[in-house]
């Protein structure tokens, strides 16, 4: 095997690593969301003034109606919801925000907050799929010190076990 490797042609290649800093304007609704999250531990979605669909995460335009949602259209949502889909990510890949391998395995789920009409993806605190079920209740876990960043302020959602 090692002999074969030596015989294999050593092709000419150049390796590099990009490291591109960027600044992304998050938009007024997200600013309001993170302010409320930081100061009052509240979760806000945005409600379309036309079709009344409640979007979480909040966003500025309702894709169905192409109608703008303003800060006045933001509504508070409970930090609880229902699990709609789940997986455990169990493969290595480079996380572009760090340049390193993202730690795995991790629980990753699709859920709907109570009162929201759209779905959300985030980390969940479970890596054993036999303990996860569609329909389970989930709850946002808030950091004590919040700084206006999703992964720092709500690092994951917790699956509420049935006995609780």
């Amino acid at each position: 095997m090692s002999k074969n490797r030596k015989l294999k042609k050593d092709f000419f290649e150049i390796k590099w690593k990009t490291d591109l800093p960027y600044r992304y304007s998050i938009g007024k609704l997200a600013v309001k969301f993170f302010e409320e999250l930081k100061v009052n531990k509240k979760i806000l979605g945005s409600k379309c003034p036309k079709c009344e669909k409640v979007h979480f995460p909040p966003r500025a335009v309702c894709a169905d109606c192409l109608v703008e949602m303003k800060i006045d259209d933001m509504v508070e949502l409970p930090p609880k919801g229902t699990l709609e889909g789940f997986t455990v990510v169990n493969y290595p890949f480079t996380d572009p925000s760090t340049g390193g391998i993202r730690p795995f395995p991790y629980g990753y789920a699709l859920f709907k907050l109570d009162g929201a009409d759209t779905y959300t993806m985030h980390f969940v605190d479970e890596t054993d799929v036999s303990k996860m079920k569609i329909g389970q209740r989930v709850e946002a876990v808030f950091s004590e010190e919040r700084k206006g960043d999703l992964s720092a302020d709500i690092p994951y959602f917790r699956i509420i076990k049935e006995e609780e």
Partner: protein
Amino acid sequence: MKIPKHDVAVVGIGQTKFRSKRRDVNIPEMIYEAVKMALDDAQLEPKEIDAVIIGNMDHFEGINFSELLCGIEAAPGYLKPVVKVATGGTTGSSLAICGYHNVASGIYNNVLVVGWEKLNEGGATTGIITAFDPVWERPSLAGALGPLALMAGMYSAKYGITPEQAAKVTVKNRSNAANNPFAHLQMPNITIDYVMSSQMISYPLRLHDCCPQSEGACALIYANEQETKKITDNPAWVHAVETAHYYTFGTDDKMFDLPTATIASKKAYKKAGISNPVKDLDVAEIYEPTSWSELSWTEALGFCKPGEGGKLLDEEITQMSGELPVNPSGGVLSTNPIGATALVRVAEAAIQIMGRGEKRQVPDVEKALAMGFGGSLWTEIMILGKNPMR
């Protein structure tokens, strides 16, 4: 419905042998192989090409503005219009549809489209993450496979589709791939057990439920009816194209049943005069990033009722010997050079129409469907036929 100005046909096809690594060639050299093959196939001189449309996803190789590197050196774009198209997984089908529009509208008499990717030089998962929202989606997103795993789990829970049925898709497609000299993963002796004992990489997806990362390129030449007559008496005519884009965030809706595929295919069937896709189509080349997705997509495309994708497979309708073979080429589960992947679907559908599929040929193909999937659950459809629409 607007009537296109011209009938348009595929008159030249080129593709590289797809592999996990092409360390013997750089990007333009690799693309040139497919372009040259398409030109030779149509017996056209480079100078006879009117315009070039090229596509890939920049973040996968870290080469931004890649048409600069490739539009001239790898494709005959010197002093001609060269346009770049990048729409994620659908890049190849967007290329196919843009090329079609440019000829159907009468702007050009012919157009060369080429899609490519060299995924071993960067990576799809990392690149895909950079396509999504930095605040809400990037932190937890695991490329395409994370969401595809969620979709597979939800689909399985809703309809009772089993991991065995999913594994059977991989077995079908990778054994079909053994008949396709261009396919990347050719596994004539693959078994259900082999798929089901492979590593769990994101429940319920095992390694062999997922598409590979491939390197290679695919090129097509389109021509209007007058030019087509001069080039070949065996073209593949475009009967219908349709695109359906979805929400910005994949999570705006529940992630199964792929509504865009249902919407786009219904419109395309209407244009192409197809009332019963299983009866009226002779072959389908669909974009299945995972084994589970093929089952779900066959439902969304109307090949069977919702929830019956597993039954359709069990009844062998989508097998090579079935009423509507799906992915005789081996599909995406065998070959996935992302910017070329959906264009390979169109190329393979055209090959079937032309009767040039050799060992992977389905007998007497009159109508074929090609599908692209990607972005935020987007679908693109192209229907090809043996005869012009008018």
